[in-house]
């Protein structure tokens, strides 16, 4: 197995753990932690593809920087949403937030 395949397999492991946790977790914050795992897998895969093949290494690293920026923005928004949900429902349980206003 060449190095690129090994790195991609680690990225898939992160993807699998993240997806599993996303369904397994009960609280919104637990789900946020799992989304961060997923995004980390994506970043690892991108950098590996840029560094270990003939493709542009700069493009791979800048793409990962973009993912990190998106992860930070996403964490900020989820924090605000969790604050709202806890204020309204007194819990951050994802099953409690199941009613729509209409």
């Amino acid at each position, binding site marked *: 197995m060449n190095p690129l395949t090994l790195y991609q397999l680690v990225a898939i492991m992160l993807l699998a753990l993240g997806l599993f946790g996303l369904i397994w*977790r009960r609280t919104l914050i637990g789900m946020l932690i799992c989304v*961060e795992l997923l995004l980390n897998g994506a970043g690892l895969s991108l950098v590996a593809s840029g560094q270990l*093949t003939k493709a542009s290494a700069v493009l791979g690293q800048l793409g990962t920087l973009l993912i990190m920026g998106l992860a930070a923005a996403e964490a900020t928004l989820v924090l605000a949403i969790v604050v709202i949900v806890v204020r309204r429902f007194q819990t951050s349980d994802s099953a409690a937030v199941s009613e729509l206003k209409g």
Partner: protein
Amino acid sequence: MMEILAYAAFGLYVLIIATGGVIAVAARNLVRGLVGLIMTLFGVAGMYLLMAAPVMAFMQLLIYVGAVAVLIFIAIMLVRTGPDGDETRSRSAKEILYAFLGFAAPAIILGRVIIGNPVESVSSPTVVTVKELGKGLLGPYTLAFELISVVLLVAMAGAVLVAFERRLSK
């Protein structure tokens, strides 16, 4: 000799990432889960170093461990939970089945594709200097750079707006 060392370091990082990931997913206490996530982030940073991408390793520590982990910690702090942890509700058999299917299906399909179609890879990657990265950001990828700034600004403004929602409506 160097190759064996590289593989040993790789194995160590895989171990760190796997342990941290399992803790992040399975820990009952959310703070422990967060510590597991941070462990994984350090492992991935080590992998970036191994791939000769020190700038990315630095950014990983700066952005993820420095900013995102602190944000998640504040979120945990803002949510008051009972004394027996955050994830105490039991799961039905159907949910457990879905969780396992949800991670096994993509992992098996993607894993088969990657192992079945190996791409030619370079064993010794070249180091990308900060200068080259900066030239990329100000040259061909200016639009992406500006857009991510806008996204971050909008996310921050939106977060403030959403969190003050009640006061606005009164």
